[in-house]
């Protein structure tokens, strides 16, 4: 019997030992990070999406992605792009973490993949197939392909992990909540290692129409790279984007026992709900504040110890104003002394992947001492805050980072990471 870990009174420390990403900026963490630092935008005129009748013709697409590099034909056929991105990111993360799933470890390894919208394109195709060709033409793989747990299931099958595998769906907070769920699983002893992250492939006509009609999307169609303008006075909405990021989280003793590289400590997680409105944040940021406060408390971090914030920073009029108000409430004047950047300015909003990609970004900041910029922030809405406009900044001694994710439905999640001891 594979028993649980020896539990002592103290909560287990959770560390990050690997990560992978597929984004509009590149198909690896290294490529994504390099583009972020350079302020190079992944947002462009949409390619291969039928924009007939749409007010939005721009987005952040994963380009040149060849699923055959990552999975055999039967898996390719039965997976939506969202799950393909997740699987590719998971494989990169496991390689990075040098994670070997053997018989002894397999039952102690879990998979949690967040997605806001899941396999939307595949579901749409299945509806059309039923209408045009009838029930007989619906593939027996359809209930797999069109399910929001398909990414987690494919990753578990590919890696051979036998701990719990599941989806986590909380709109734009899904990636952060998946990581949060992983932290809880490790602390409770349900798993020693969790492959966790987020993925979405929602640059589809339906999603663009829906969020566009909700007036949440930028319509700066004539200047895609300038469309996402977090914390800028001239912002006019977020930019729909797609991708995935997956991290390997482990109990510190599990990582140490196998000699795994520790990239950071996943110190705290907090989540909440606005209980207010489906698309608009609570005007005073009631829910967002609860989540950020809970994450800091969970991490045992005082507001004055936060060295970097990777903001949710979507570039919508409401989110950015409320997020700044919340950061001022929670961090006080500390927020005017630290860099606060939104990498959505170059990635666009990858929905369920966003929180996971931004967590990877926050860890990269702590590891390298370099902060990627918020591009297009020409007229900051709060002149006292350093939004890292236009160009990356370097800074010594950053040890704690906060990453925020606030979603439609009023789902809020915040994560706190601490630099790995070796990086201090």
């Amino acid at each position, binding site marked *: 019997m594979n028993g649980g870990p020896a539990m002592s009174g103290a909560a287990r420390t959770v560390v990050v030992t690997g990560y992978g990403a597929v984004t509009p900026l590149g198909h690896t963490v290294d490529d994504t990070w390099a583009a972020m630092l350079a302020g190079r935008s992944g947002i462009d005129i949409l390619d291969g999406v039928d924009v007939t009748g749409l007010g939005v013709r721009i987005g952040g697409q994963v380009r040149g992605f060849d699923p055959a590099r990552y999975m055999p034909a039967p898996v390719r056929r039965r997976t939506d792009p969202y799950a393909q991105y997740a699987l590719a990111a998971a494989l990169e993360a496991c390689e990075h973490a040098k994670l070997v799933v053997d018989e002894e470890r397999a039952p102690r390894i879990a998979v949690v993949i967040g997605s806001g919208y899941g396999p939307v394109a595949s579901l749409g195709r299945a509806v059309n197939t039923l209408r045009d060709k009838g029930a007989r033409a619906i*593939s*027996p793989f359809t209930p797999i392909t069109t399910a929001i747990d398909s990414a987690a299931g494919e990753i578990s099958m590919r890696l051979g992990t036998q701990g719990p595998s599941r989806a986590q769906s909380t709109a734009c907070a899904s990636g952060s909540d998946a990581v949060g769920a992983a932290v809880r699983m490790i602390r409770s002893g349900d798993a020693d290692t969790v492959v966790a992250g987020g993925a979405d492939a929602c640059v589809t006509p339906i999603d663009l129409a829906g969020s566009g009609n909700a007036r949440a999307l930028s319509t700066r169609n004539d200047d895609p790279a300038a469309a996402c303008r977090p914390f800028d006075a001239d912002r006019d909405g977020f930019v729909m984007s797609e991708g995935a990021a997956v991290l390997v989280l482990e109990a510190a003793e599990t990582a140490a026992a196998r000699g795994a590289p520790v990239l950071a400590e996943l110190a705290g997680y907090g989540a909440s709900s606005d209980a207010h409105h489906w698309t608009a944040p609570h005007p005073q940021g009631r829910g967002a504040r609860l989540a950020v406060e809970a994450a800091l408390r969970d991490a045992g971090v005082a507001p004055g110890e936060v060295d970097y914030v990777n903001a949710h920073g979507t570039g919508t009029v409401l989110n950015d104003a409320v997020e700044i108000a919340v950061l001022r409430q929670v961090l006080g004047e500390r927020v005017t002394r630290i860099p606060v950047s939104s990498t959505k300015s170059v990635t666009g909003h990858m929905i369920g992947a966003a929180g996971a990609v931004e967590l990877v970004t926050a860890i990269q900041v702590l590891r390298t001492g370099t902060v990627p910029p918020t591009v297009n922030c020409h007229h900051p809405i709060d002149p006292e805050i350093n939004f890292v406009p236009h160009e990356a900044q370097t800074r010594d001694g950053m040890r704690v980072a906060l990453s925020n994710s606030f979603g439609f439905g009023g789902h809020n999640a915040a994560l706190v990471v601490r630099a790995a001891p070796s990086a201090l």
Partner: protein
Amino acid sequence: MATNEEILADLGEIIEEIAGVAAADVTPEKSFVDDLDIDSLSLVEIVVQAEDKFGVKIPDDEMANTVNDAVRYIAANQS
């Protein structure tokens, strides 16, 4: 009317596309499940595509044995 060789070649292409088994490996004596290792869900997809391709209604049982059995059934029942 397609010959047995043509049916075999077309079936091989369908199987390669759906199950990722090389068409060249789809030879008459092989069993879909035991030799080609095609899972039950993929087999259903293969049957549906083969029905479209050959205009033949194929009972699931006809795909339970060897490639040759399927080819002969299709050849005998094609319209």
